């Protein structure tokens, strides 16, 4: 009994394999688009900005004259901003993740909270800016301070860290958990001494990646009204400040050509900071992630 007509198959096989090969090549090209864009972006930026990346540039305040403008205030401001955003975001997100994974009862409220968090992750950053402008800047009268902007960014990146932390906590095997309970540990002892330490590399990776998103975020800062020409650095969280991405945005809008080189130089600094943060995250992920 001949079920498959061999000749028929052989006849069409060449064409089918050719199609397979050519489509594979096309898919490979799609994959390479990202690489090509990344290389173009970096080369273009470095060529434009390299010559302006001087010590003076790093240590001067912003200025309307391109030859004396620098990025010092913006860097310090961004550091202040992260100093507020990071602790607030970490406490909120890790607390939420612990509650959802370890304590929350399986009911409608928990379900609602989970859905709500994934929806918050999809809210555009500019809408978070409007929230910050109305609640923190106006109603709590914080003005365009480090605190107002930091809280806004913390709320914005919270969903990202929560999801990462939840995954890290879920990856701790139940055998470890049960062993702890079996030894007579209470719930919190198990959570704080067994589960958190085991999940911490994953959580920290999530935190660093989220913070590297926050440090480059511009839209909420524009909406809050972060200034672009200040000649002082903040002395406390209630002072106003400059920020790195805001400075870049301000320069790119300038009509004078000289500012385009400053923009590129600013971007190099921002990308270097991001690269550093990402390297740390990858290092922690590879070095400390435990396999059970």
């Amino acid at each position: 009994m001949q079920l498959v007509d061999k000749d028929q198959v052989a006849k069409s096989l060449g064409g089918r394999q050719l199609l397979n090969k050519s489509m594979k090549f096309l898919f490979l090209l799609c994959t390479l688009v990202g690489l090509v864009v990344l290389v173009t972006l970096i080369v273009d930026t470095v060529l434009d900005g390299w010559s302006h990346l001087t010590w003076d540039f790093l240590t001067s305040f912003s200025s309307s004259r391109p030859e004396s403008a620098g990025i010092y205030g913006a860097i310090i401001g961004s550091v202040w901003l992260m100093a507020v955003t990071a602790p607030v975001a970490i406490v909120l997100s890790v607390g939420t993740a612990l509650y959802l994974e370890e304590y929350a009862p399986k009911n409608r409220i928990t379900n609602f909270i989970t859905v709500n968090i994934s929806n918050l992750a999809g809210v555009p950053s500019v809408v978070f800016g409007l929230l910050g402008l109305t609640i923190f800047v106006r109603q709590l009268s914080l003005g365009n301070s480090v605190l107002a902007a930091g809280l806004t960014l913390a709320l914005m990146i919270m969903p990202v860290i929560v999801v990462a932390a939840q995954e890290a906590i879920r990856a701790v095997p139940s055998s470890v958990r049960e062993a702890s309970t079996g030894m007579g540990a209470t719930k919190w002892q198990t959570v704080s001494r067994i589960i958190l330490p085991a999940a911490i590399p994953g959580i920290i990776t999530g935190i660093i990646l989220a913070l590297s998103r926050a440090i480059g975020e511009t839209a909420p800062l524009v909406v809050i009204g972060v200034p672009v020409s200040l000649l002082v650095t903040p002395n406390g969280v209630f002072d106003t400040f400059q920020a790195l991405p805001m400075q870049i945005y301000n320069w790119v809008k300038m009509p004078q050509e000289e500012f385009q080189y400053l923009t590129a130089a600013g971007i190099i600094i921002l990308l270097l900071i991001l690269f550093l943060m990402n390297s740390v995250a990858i290092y922690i992920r590879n070095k400390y992630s435990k396999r059970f």
Partner: protein
Amino acid sequence: MNEYNIREMIQNNKNNKSTKFIEKAVPTILFIITSVSILTTIGILYTLLSETFIFFTRVSFIEFITATEWKAFSSNPSFGIIALIMGTLKIVVIATMVAVPVGLGAAIYLSEYATDRIRRIVKPILEILAGIPTVVYGTFAITFVTPLIREMFPGVSLYNAISPGVVVGIMIVPMIASLSEDAMSSVPGTTREGSLALGATRLETVFKVILPAAASGIIASFVLGISRAIGETMIVSIAAGSTPGADFDLTSSLQTMTGFIVQVTSGDAAFGTDLYYSLYAVGMTLFLFTLIMNLAAQWITKKFKEEY
């Protein structure tokens, strides 16, 4: 040797006063922290709704949704959201036309063709691309992509829809690629191997077996990508201009909903003016659009999920 009574030790541990207190307090504290996420949502809704409500006591709702001109800064202002929605739509359509084929192609390659080694090299590159700040993409659009496009098509003006549209598309490629790849990788190997064993080529397996099986996840990734494109702010603020209009012209300056919010807030919108409240009406519209897209993505994933 001391005699340890294990049961007693456990009992002591559990009856210890501070332990007892902590065990009771911790869930409550964690629940309070968790409720901040709910408060954030309430805050967003309250902010947008209350100010939008005031806006509609000054400008009629009918004008808002039917007028085709958006002249918020004019002395004789007109608030027709359609003009801003058209701007957003132009960007989103161009971005989708770039991101969906490229993202899906990359996902198919990574999930079905690539060796482990290639995957280990390519995935971090996609992660880096996903982590680049949008203000950097915006600068890239105006200093590199726009001049390139203007060289090829001299009729295009400095601010246009094509350049920011393409760059927004590139920005969402990593998201679509990685979510789609996740969906395809979760199709079990047995299904794939069954198809290959029947004599199908890799390509036929992809189109006839893998894509249908992973369709829900893939479509959800498209929807999430589109939602991201709608909310994208800095690229369009930098490279798309600030001329709202309800037309289909891709070659001249336009304004999106997000672009308008940035334009108003980078100047001094005096508190209490129509202009100030229009900010929230636009924000509300933007929020609704992205919310609907996100809910749609969740619904698609849930409804059409294939169980293995």
